[in-house]
């Protein structure tokens, strides 16, 4: 089962590698990981998408909490978070497919951010499922290059860091 976990960490030297090596050292999976500073000074926030059964997820939570630099671990297992991801997608766009790409971009409320006679580059934002969906539609048209940020998540309402 896939889980999204937010980890608030002290902005200390080497903290990313501590978290990453915890996952690799204990054989936990990382589907995606993003990290950036927060509005609070000295505090960064990681969003990790991982998978495993209940026992493994409990261990992941506990092991993360055990790291000295980790201030809080929030497990958004129950749909209690809003998740967003961004993708930059370069697709082949020649002749009649140019119009088709534009239609898809329009439907998904994505943006064209670079155009050449042979390609479009698209910026798409949304839930990871929405990104998967637009990719499914673009793939047959000729997907040249893809960059995804990985999910970021924030709790709904009172759920989250400091409510």
């Amino acid at each position, binding site marked *: 089962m896939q889980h999204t976990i937010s980890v608030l*960490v*002290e902005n200390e*030297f*080497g903290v990313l*590698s*501590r978290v990453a*090596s915890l996952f690799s*050292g204990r054989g936990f999976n990382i589907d995606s990981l993003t990290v950036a500073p927060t509005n609070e000074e000295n505090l960064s926030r990681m969003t990790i998408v991982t998978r495993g059964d209940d*026992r493994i997820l*409990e*261990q992941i939570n*506990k*092991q993360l*909490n*055990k790291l*000295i*630099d*980790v*201030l809080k671990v929030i497990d958004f297992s129950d749909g209690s978070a809003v998740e967003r991801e961004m993708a930059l997608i370069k697709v082949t766009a020649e002749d009649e497919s140019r119009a088709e790409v534009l239609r898809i971009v329009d439907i998904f409320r994505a943006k064209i951010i670079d155009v050449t006679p042979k390609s479009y580059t698209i910026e798409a934002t949304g839930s990871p499922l929405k990104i998967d969906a637009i990719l499914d539609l673009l793939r047959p048209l000729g997907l040249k290059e893809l960059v995804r940020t990985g999910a970021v998540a924030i709790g709904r309402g009172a759920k989250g860091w400091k409510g």
Partner: protein
Amino acid sequence: MKMNGARIMLECLKKEGVDTIFGYPGGTVINIYDELFGIKGINHILPRHEQGGTHAADGYARASGKVGVAIATSGPGATNTVTGIATAYMDSVPMVIITGQVPTALIGNDAFQEVDIIGITRSCTKHSFLVRDVNELAGIMKKAFYIARTGRPGPVLVDLPKDVQIAQTEFVYPETVEIRSYKPTVEGHPKQIERAVEMLLASHKPVLYVGGGVILGNAADELTTLARMLIAPVTTTLMGLGAFPGNDRLSLGMPGMHGSYCANMAMTHSDMIVAIGARFDDRVTGKLATFAPHARIIHIDVDPTSIKKNVRVDLPIVGDVKDVLSKMIRQLKKSDEKLKSFVSGISAWDEEINGWKEKHPINYKNSSSIIKPQYVIQKLRELSDDDAIISTDVGQHQMWTAQFFQFNRPRTLLSSGGLGTMGYGLPAAMGAQAAFPGRQVITICGDGGVQMNIQEMATLVQNRLPVKIVILNNNFLGMVRQWQELFFEKRYSQTCLELPIDFIKLAEAYGAKGFRATKPDEVENTIKQGFAHNGPVIMEFMIAREEKVLPMVPAGASLNEMVLNA
């Protein structure tokens, strides 16, 4: 007062009450050694190898309960400490390791003797710090000691670049330490403790399964009180030996792979296992699917990650074992009636356990012509002081020591349980002797492991540390040989050491003394001579070469599938 970083580091050690350190000089710690020259209040012991120094700091910490301190230079000095750090990490030993580092401007440039020791030790330290500014140094040292000794203890590494050692600043040692992201749980949850006592009093076949956490948490007295109140049998893991008196009638000995028949049968038939500062290691549980099939499990541990890691747990209590056990005792006193009926109902279980004890006690067949290792261990117990500190290496002799040397007090057995580090015994004994110059310190080794840190003989002699080194010599890497005999059709691949070493001459080469016994009737006299000698000694016993450690639960088998005689 303004001081340089090197001096500040040493002043921090003094503020932490450190009186003994183990360290090895080198290019990037030369400023520390310059400041150490003539300093008062810190006894510096120079090992002959950084691994020896790190194990010595570990032995010092395990025997005394204080934080052990080791110093090494950058590069190879630092990498030589890694086995010592990993050993301490696996057994939760509080240590602070100071490594020199190349100047900050050179970090990452593949400078001479540069290594990313923080990266190398990330997965075997509790935490680590790279000091980048001399103004941060005192605060980091304070944090390092605090992290090392609180919660589940462990080694903390402080990497100290050379320019930071030279830079000057005002020395102010912080009075308090506050790490907002590190708040170990000390007090057990009162409701959980209440429930645990209820659950325990409703059981009929309880076993207290005790690990090293009880020793680390200084809770041996509480444990003994609890066991005697309940008249509940106690099984102690290798790390827990000494937490409960081995000569008490409630003691079952060690569980697991080379545990006693009665301990393993008790675990298998129990309806209530109370795990106290133990972590259900695979050497203890055997096959997980058939482990303690009838038992409800209460697990008390300061480290939440230990709970439900390997086995299902019915009732977890996170907290310091001393706090939790004393609260359980208080709760039991309040439940007087229930306790009385519990105790009166326990005799059937007691009888069942005694039946197992009598059926297959830990035993061996002695011989009048050849020295049996178990006999040597029994004689050592008989002739040594009550408060003697024993360290071991890893292998057959370690298991024979665990089985036959009855440990009655906490912090009297120092052994690498988690990592299983050969070469640990001699330097660990050195550290323990430095902590307790007046006590008898004995290291029990095999002829394989003792050679892994034999160079520390020189340190013993130089520092007048009268460690008694017992070598059970079978000219084999005995434990692996035993596995080869039992599971690999006696194909003794690379386990015969072939070249016999003259350990007596070796002792003499280092300026120590050596005694050898080749026949059973020489054992007692050899031990007496060794103990009587006023200095470090090697006592070598030429033992039955193919003696096995029994009973044995083969790897992957269930606890009740013990090989009793093979």
